[in-house]
Each structure stands twice: as C-alpha cells, then as structure tokens.
C-alpha cells in the first residue's frame, strides 16, 4: 500500500468534486436564497483540502495502481466525498447537526434516498438541488465520472473502476476504460434529459422536473416534495416515473446497445428478462392482493401496486401510497424486493438480479447432482459457462450481505429501535432503497434514529453502494499487513 499515491488521487478526486459544487451555487444564486454562502464555504474547504493533498503528494508516481490500492482509493474517496458533500448542509442555517448532514449526504451519494428532513419543502432551493444532484453523481458513480473525465488516471483508472463497479460479469463496451466510462455517462445523461422533457410535458416546473430526473435515474428517490411523488397525484407522472425507474434498473450497457440499433438487446439479455419478468409477476401479485382490500378499482390497484413494486425493486424509494396500510403479503413482497434489487450494471442497489439468478442456478445444480451424483454440469448464463471464481464471489457476496444485514439489524435494535424499524431500516440502507417499514416507513423519516444508529446506517449505505467487498476489506487484518 502506497499511501502517498492513494492520498494524491483522493486529493484529485476531492478537487474535482469541489468543482461540481458550482451547479448548486448557480441554482442558489438564481433563486437568491441563503444556500449561496454555505455552498461557497463548502466549496472553498473542499478545494483547499483537495489542493493541499494534491500539492503535498504531487510527486508520487501513480501510473500503476494495485487492486488493493484501487479499493482503498474508492473507499476513502467515497467517504471523503460524503464528508464534503455534507458541508453545504452542515454550514447552512437550516439546523443540520453534523451527523444529520453526513447522513443526508451519504444517503444521497449512495442513492439510498433516506432523509432526516422532517419538512423538505421548507429547505432552500439551492440545498434541495444539491441533494438531488449528489444522487445523480453517485448513481453512475463519481469514480466512473472521474475516470471518464480526468486523463491522468490512465491505466490506474481500471482498478478504480473495478472497485466501484464490482459486477460479477464485467463488460467493457470499448477497449479503453476511459471510453467505456464516458459512454456510460453519456447514456445516463441522455436518459436523464429525456425524463426532464417528459416531466415538463406533464406540467411539472423545470426545477422539480430536473430534481426528480436527477433522483430517478440513479434510483435514488430524494424528492423535492414532503409527500414524494404522491404530491402530484397524477397517473401520467406515475407512468413516467415507473418507466424511467425500470430503465434505471436495467444494465446501462444494454441501453447503449439499444441506442446503437440492437433493438433486441434487452430481450437477448437473460438478466434483463429475469428482472422484467420478476417485476411483472410481483406487480401482478401485489395488485391482486390490494385490489378490493385497499383500492376498489382494478386500475388504481395496478397503478399504485406497480409504482410501489417498481420503486422498491429498483431501489429508488419514491412513494405514491403508504404501503404500510396494505395487506401483510404485499408488505412482505416489498420487503423481498429490497433484497432482490435491480440489474447488475444498473444504478440500482440490492443483491442484484444477476446474483439471485446465479444463486438459483447453483442451488438447482446442487439438487441435480444429488439425483445424478456422477453428472458433470456447468452453470450457464446466456449460453456461456460461468467460471467458478465468479460463482464463488457471488456466493460469498450473498453470504456477506445477509450476514452484515443481520449483524447491523441486531446492533440497531440494541440501540433501542423497535423490531420492524430496525429490520427495515437496515434492509433499506444496505440495499440503497430509502424508505422502509415501521418508524422509517414511506410516510416517516430517519430523523428520530439514535445518534450511533445513524452512523451505523451510513456505514450500511456505503457497504451496499460499493457492493460490500470494497468497504468490508478494510476490516480484514490481512489487508493492512505489509
């Protein structure tokens, strides 16, 4: 581990991140609200820290980065970005304690979307925009963006990319990682703009449309309204949101292929079929379950059922209905959705459909070999054999995910949070969803979680966003050994 090099790159990332604060500054300046000064101060602090780190370590050679260093840079980088992203909140006069500001910022970057704000609409426009904008940055990944834009990362960019996007089956769209990262960001931005246009067409104001697009595409779920999307109570908007949430839950390289003219790209991808299939089936069950019990018309049942299932399975976390009043079966399905999550290579969180699929295939193979002990079988994905090490990493991931979930839930309950809330808050944090059940349900917020509980959830959100390994590796003694 060459800490000098790590700190140098973290310094550059911080500098770069400071630059993005120009956008909320412009918004705050346009609305002439009181977010301008705190944002300026935050920007100055960010630049100063990043600049000092870079100046201090500028002579360090960073052309080659090892995998271990890549993980350290990404983990430290994300924590740093969470910290500096919290500054505009903390420095503002809107009463954020430090832990609250940090919680809000990390919840943004990790695209979780759980908030400690009790009244969102009273927050200044500049800060609201910042809140949405950091979700947008975090969705496709601040590291991926840096790799795309900062040329100096060069070869080392690949290790960073792998540490931030640890999908089991990586696919490079272009020979060079920089071009790949750039393409993904272009596709991401393009779809975001499409959503803004669609929302404007429905009569939403530009500010709200931009904010909502910035939180839909990263499957974040921050809203500028207290009542989330329910505020608009419009079937058109619900439809637009459902459509774009589903898009955000699909692997972005498929979007690229589709835009390049491979119209069957979505259908040909087995994970995408699985994701769309399971979403449709669950929508069907939930709608049927709430039809007659909660909603009297079939249209309403499908509209609210579909929105909520899509919102949770893509790990966005918008709400149009208080699903805690729904029958237990629907609630449990939504809880299940928190664990399934969206596709690998999408902006969604959770365990990811790909891993779930591979896990089922693995289970089936085990059962099959009980019946035919001498059979040689191979787990296949899209017609290709899945290498053993990929399978091992998937199983390890699922084990760690559930283990860390259980551990954190027990810890949170130990801090005095009730059963349902502890369970759901951790599931919603580690899966990057946002709203859970109980005291953190869709109509509630996270303000009342105890002090240490918030830190625990911050850690869970980072764990979930960087897909466990990049964060948990820091706790492994072997990682620190020389």
């Amino acid at each position: 581990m060459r800490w000098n090099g790590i700190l140098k790159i973290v310094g550059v990332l911080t500098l770069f991140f400071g630059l993005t604060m120009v956008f909320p500054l412009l918004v705050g300046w346009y609305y002439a609200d009181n977010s301008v000064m705190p944002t300026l101060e935050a920007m100055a602090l960010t630049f100063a820290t990043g600049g000092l780190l870079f100046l201090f370590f500028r002579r360090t050679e960073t052309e080659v980065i090892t995998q271990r260093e890549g993980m350290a840079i990404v983990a430290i980088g994300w924590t740093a970005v969470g910290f500096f992203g919290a500054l505009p909140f903390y420095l503002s006069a809107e009463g954020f304690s430090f832990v609250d500001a940090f919680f809000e910022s990390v919840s943004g970057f990790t695209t979780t979307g759980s908030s400690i704000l009790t009244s969102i609409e009273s927050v200044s426009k500049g800060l609201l925009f910042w809140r949405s904008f950091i979700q947008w940055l975090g969705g496709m990944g601040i590291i991926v963006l840096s790799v795309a834009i900062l040329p100096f990362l060069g070869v080392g960019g690949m290790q960073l990319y792998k540490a931030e996007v640890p999908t089991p089956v990586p696919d490079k769209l272009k020979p060079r990682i920089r071009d790949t990262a750039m393409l993904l960001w272009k596709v991401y931005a393009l779809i975001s703009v499409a959503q803004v246009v669609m929302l404007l067409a429905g009569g939403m104001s530009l500010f709200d449309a931009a904010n909502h697009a910035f939180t839909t595409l990263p499957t974040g779920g921050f809203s500028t309204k207290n009542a989330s999307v329910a505020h608009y109570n419009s079937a058109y908007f619900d439809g637009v949101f459902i459509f774009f949430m589903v898009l955000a839950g699909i692997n972005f390289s498929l979007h690229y292929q589709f835009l390049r003219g491979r119209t069957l790209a979505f259908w040909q991808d087995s994970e995408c079929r699985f994701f769309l299939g399971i979403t449709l089936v669950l929508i069907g069950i939930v709608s049927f379950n709430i039809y007659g019990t909660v909603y009297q018309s079939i249209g309403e049942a499908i509209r609210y059922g579909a929105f909520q299932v899509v919102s949770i399975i893509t790990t966005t976390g918008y709400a149009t209905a208080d699903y805690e009043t729904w029958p237990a079966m629907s609630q449990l399905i939504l809880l299940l959705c928190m664990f399934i999550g969206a596709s690998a290579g999408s902006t969604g969180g959770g365990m990811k459909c790909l891993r779930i699929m591979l896990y089922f295939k693995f289970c089936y193979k085990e059962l099959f070999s009980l019946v035919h002990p001498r059979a040689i079988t191979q787990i296949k994905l899209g017609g290709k054999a899945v290498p053993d090490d990929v399978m091992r990493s998937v199983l390890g991931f699922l084990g760690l995910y559930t283990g860390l979930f259980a551990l954190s839930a027990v810890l949170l309950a130990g801090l005095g949070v009730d059963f349902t809330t502890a369970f759901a808050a951790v599931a919603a944090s580690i899966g990057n969803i946002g709203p859970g059940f109980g005291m953190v349900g869709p109509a509630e917020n996270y303000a009342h979680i105890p002090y240490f509980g918030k830190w625990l959830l911050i850690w869970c959100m980072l764990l979930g966003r960087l897909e466990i390994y990049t964060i948990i590796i820091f706790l492994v003694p072997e990682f620190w050994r020389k």
Partner: protein
Amino acid sequence: MKIVIIGAGEVGFHIASRLARENKDVVLVDQNPEAIRRVTDSIDVQCLTGSGSSPTILEEAGIDKADILLAVTDSDEANLVACLVADILSPTTKKLARLRNAEFDRYHDTFSENAPHIDTVINPEIEVVKTIERLMSVPGAVEVGEFTDGRVKFIGVNLDRRAPLAGVLLSEIPAYIKGPRPLIAAIVRDEKVIIPRGNDRLKPDDLVYFLSEEEHLLDTLVLFGKHSRPLKRVLIIGGGRVGYRLATILEEKGIYTKIIEKDPRRCSELAEQLNKAVVLHGDGSDQGLLAEENVKDMDVVITLTNDEEINILASLLVTRMGAHKTITRISKFSYFPLMSTIGIEQVVSPRLSAINTILQHIRKGKVLSAISIKGEQAEVLEALALETSDIVGKPLRDISFPQGALIAGIIDNDKISIPTGESVIAPNNRIIIFARREAIPKVEKILTVKLEYF
C-alpha cells in the same frame, strides 16, 4: 487506432500493455480464461474469451474497424486460420502473424501475395538469430540495432572504468576525438533512462547508447574501452531450432563451431544436417565436458537451451572458466533487470525480438524501424521525414518537439549528422528519434499529422 491481438501469451500480453499505455484501442482474444484474467487484472484493454479463428469472435472483437490484426498464439495453424478468417471479414485490416515452423520460411512472400494476405510474417527464431549475429559482430555491445539497412548502428555498451570516455563531460567529448564522434543518444544509470545534455558526465558502469556509422564503429568502441577481437571459435549450448539455424550461418562464415546438446537423438539429427560443426552429446553445465572442449579459448559461448535457468547458470559457469563473451537466451521478462547484476550482459529473447519486429510494423506513419531499449522504457525510431510533416524545412529550435524525445541523428544521403538547434531537416531525410515511452504517442503524431489530411 484499433488493434486486435489473438493470443494472450507473453508476446501478446506485452504488446497489448505497451499499446494500451499509448492510448490505443486494443482488443485481446484468447481461449484460455486464465490468460484472459491475467490481462484484465493488469491492463486496460478489452478482452474476449474464445478462439481467435472463429468468425463470430473476430466480429465481436470489431475486426471490421481494426487497423491491425496480430496473430501471436502458440500455434502456427491457429495464427494462419485467424489471418485467413480476418482476410475474408475485413480485407483492409493489416495482418501480422507469428509463424515459428521453419518449413514456412520460404513461403513468407507467398502468404502475403496469396490467400491469407499476411502483410508481415514474423518468425521469432529468425529474428533472434539475427540479433545474436549482430551482438557477435560488435564487441562489448549489450544491444545492437541497425538503421538504414545496417549502415548506421545503434549500440548500447556498458562503460568500462578504464575507458577513455569514462568520467568525461559530454561537451568535452569533441576534444578527445579526432575523427567523427559518436552521437550519444541516451544513458541508462540506476535503471533510469537519461537523455543527456552537454553538462552531463559519462560515469563508469553507465549503459551508454550511441549512434555510429558502420565504418567508424570499431574506432568508436575503443573510446568506450571495447576492443575488437576476431571471431574464430563459437560454442553453442543447446541444439534446438535456434541453435541449428545459428550453427548453419556460422558454418557458412567459416567460423569453427561446436554445439552441445543433451538429447542423443537430436545430436544425430544435427550431425546429419551440419557439415563442419562439431556436435557434442552432453550437458551444457557439465564442467568436465566444458573443460575438455577448451571453453576458455572460445570467443563466444551462446546458451540457447529451452530452460532459461540452465542458460543463465551455464553462461556464468563458462565466464568463470574463461570464455571471452557469452550470449544468453532468456524468455521470462521478469529476469531481465537481474541480468546485469549477476554479471550477464548480453541477453537475447525470441519474444523480445518478435515484439520489436511487431512494433516496427505497428508504429504509424513513415517509421522505418523501431527498437525498444532497457525494459521498454524508451524507443529509438528511424523515420522518414515527410515533406508534409511539421518537422521539415525549418530550424530544429523552431519545432515544438515533445518533451522526453530527441532527434538523435539526421541522415541525408548516407551522411549522418548530429543535429543542432540550427539544423534543418530536408524532405525525405531519415531521422533517428530517441523517445521515452510517454512521449511516443506525440512523436507518432508529429511524424504523421499532415499525412492524415490525404
């Protein structure tokens, strides 16, 4: 520029990593998932697992948009088929293939004129024999490269403590020499490449790279403390394909040659094919045998077995026993930095030779030859100064030449000169450029920039 490489072996891997560092688009294809993983773990290229001769895989690799296809798998047949398929799918792609079987030697031209249309066939064994010949011909040279068809040599020598030039300031060199002076292009000191200026001093144990015309070469080498001795007796340890090729050439030149080979059957084959050379059956690291065969009188001992550890040990052994010079064949690149430390100066590697040859063909523009030196930290390029390129027709000091690169020589109708700030490059002059790795993409651009308008 997009390059598709078939085969992620040592050669494929190295070329891929070189080109990836120069920001070229590289797609690497290999059947072995392990080899692919080694690549994805360390270099920024796109990888495909599958057969390089499969049309589907080649299409997936984007062969239609590729400028160059490089077939360097371990199998000659696979390389040929890959080129053939690529020729059908994308006839405009330039194709380079590695063919090791000597039977193909006579058909290299046939392959380029007929069906697979392979633009360049590379046989690493031929390349390595050429390298050995060059090393033998220049006393004391660690590296020998040739420009303008051998009339200008690019030489790397370790500076002796007692050499006339040891400890001399570069700007003082003209005072020491009456005749034409050597053009010192670079110094490698403590594993670092230095592009020297007038106030740099040559220190003992420096590895000095210089350019020299062939006729002045021997005089120049004396300045570096290297005295020539006639080449009369050569011992080759290892009678494989390279050993055999080399022995035939030495026989033709009338040099007294001995070959030591372990395998008795191979020995009788060699004895049958060779006329004058003495074929000895035995172990190349057997001290008794070496003493019996008067190794101390050998001008050069070349160790060419397939086992590089044996080669290294045999070279050390014969040096201790009094052989004047050794040339050692090594394949593992990770051993290269060790060699000078343990006292082995002259090293050849079929893979490195293949890489050098391939690089010449990949370099854009009018690059005539390219030699990479010292752990690939730098390259020496010989290029034709095109009439339309930016470097022609004005004094050098007005040209913004990339940092880390240097014009080491200008060749105008066989006359080689050291450029100064006032020198002007005339159209169609050949220039020799020394460039550090990071400057290479920019150098390429300077050489070709205007060409791209056509």
